């Protein structure tokens, strides 16, 4: 009988805990409900996938990142807009374990914009594009050319001396106008990134055709994140 008040308070505390925990339990409930809905709903899509024939070849999806090298000296001072230049694939591209694009295949890029460095500290500018790679007489179109950046520096432009020029002009007068900017120079072998423009389907080699059923979907093993 003496313990009754204590028992009452214990019950009260435990009921408070239950009340406090209730929202968490309720919040956790939608998980299984959603899972059930997903499990029940998409039967037509699942049937479609099951009925679709397995891809006969190896699919290299569009926007697959590639590592390429520029095989010609280019620069904001020496290059002209519209000029083309040779490129080369640096890393082989594998789909589902099969090499579809070997390292060393060549192609072409284009100078989209080139401007020499100028007075008043203006930096030289160079904008390039990767157009295509060629393999067995077939053109693999490319897009999204990017220089590999080192910090804030990029080969897309030279040393920008605009700030120095402006300060010199403010301090020493028009002499600041005659401070030039730097040109950018791309040496042969410079590494850059590009992506495939289109989905490309390659024939599966005879050995790969004999692979057991249930082979996983083609996986591009060259996938890297572009900076």
């Amino acid at each position, binding site marked *: 009988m003496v313990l009754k008040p204590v028992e009452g308070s214990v019950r009260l505390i435990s009921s408070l805990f239950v009340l406090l925990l209730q929202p968490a339990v309720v919040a956790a409930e939608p998980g299984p409900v959603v899972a059930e809905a997903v499990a029940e709903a998409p039967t037509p899509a699942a049937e479609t996938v099951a009925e679709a024939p397995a891809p006969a070849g190896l699919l290299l999806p569009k926007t697959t990142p590639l590592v390429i090298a520029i095989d010609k000296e280019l620069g904001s001072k020496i290059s002209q807009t519209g000029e083309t230049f040779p490129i080369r694939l640096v890393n082989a591209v594998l789909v589902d374990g099969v090499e579809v694009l070997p390292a060393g295949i060549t192609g072409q890029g284009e100078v*989209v*914009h080139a401007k020499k460095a100028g007075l*008043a500290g*203006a930096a030289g*500018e160079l904008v390039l594009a990767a157009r295509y790679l060629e393999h067995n007489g077939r053109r693999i179109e490319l897009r999204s050319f990017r220089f590999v950046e080192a910090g804030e520096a990029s080969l897309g*432009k030279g040393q*920008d001396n605009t700030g120095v020029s*402006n300060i010199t002009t403010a301090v020493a007068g028009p002499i600041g*106008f005659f401070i030039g900017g730097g040109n950018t120079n791309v040496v042969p072998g410079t590494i850059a990134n590009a992506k495939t423009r289109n989905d490309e389907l390659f024939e599966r080699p005879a050995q790969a055709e004999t692979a057991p059923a249930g082979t996983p979907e083609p996986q591009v093993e060259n996938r890297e994140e572009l900076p």
Partner: protein
Amino acid sequence: MKKLLAAAMIAAAAPVALIAAAPAAMAEEMAEGEFKIPTPPPGKGQILFYRTGGISGAALGCAVFDVGAEDKLSSLGAGKYFVLVSDPGPRSFTVKSLETKDALTLEIEEGETQFVRCKIKTGFLSGRADIGPSTEKEFRAKHKNPKLVDAEDMSDAVRQANYPG
């Protein structure tokens, strides 16, 4: 007994309160720390034009035009930016000032954002606007507090992309 109950409630509620407060604090930190660049609409690419702040040439605008067009796309004041949504492909831009003009051609790619920086450089009588290719790293490093160009300084197409609704 009341003290015991109060202590029990505080003890039980504390973890819940901490868990509920933590995500909000993290979200605020991210929102404050990094400017979010919008993604281009499907099938389109975009260019982010920006101009850093500074005293030199602060009174001059950097009006950006399509090459050959008479109407400007927008005009960049010091510390301002705007986003131009565009069809993929090459596109040329020019900036004009009293003494000279400068041009830049870019290859716009679907689903991607490119960056163009405008600067006002020294001229004989007045500053000269100069545009050049830039990168997201440079934009984030040199443009700490980007502010969108005022709506009245944009063409209709640019305004719709930057001030939707």
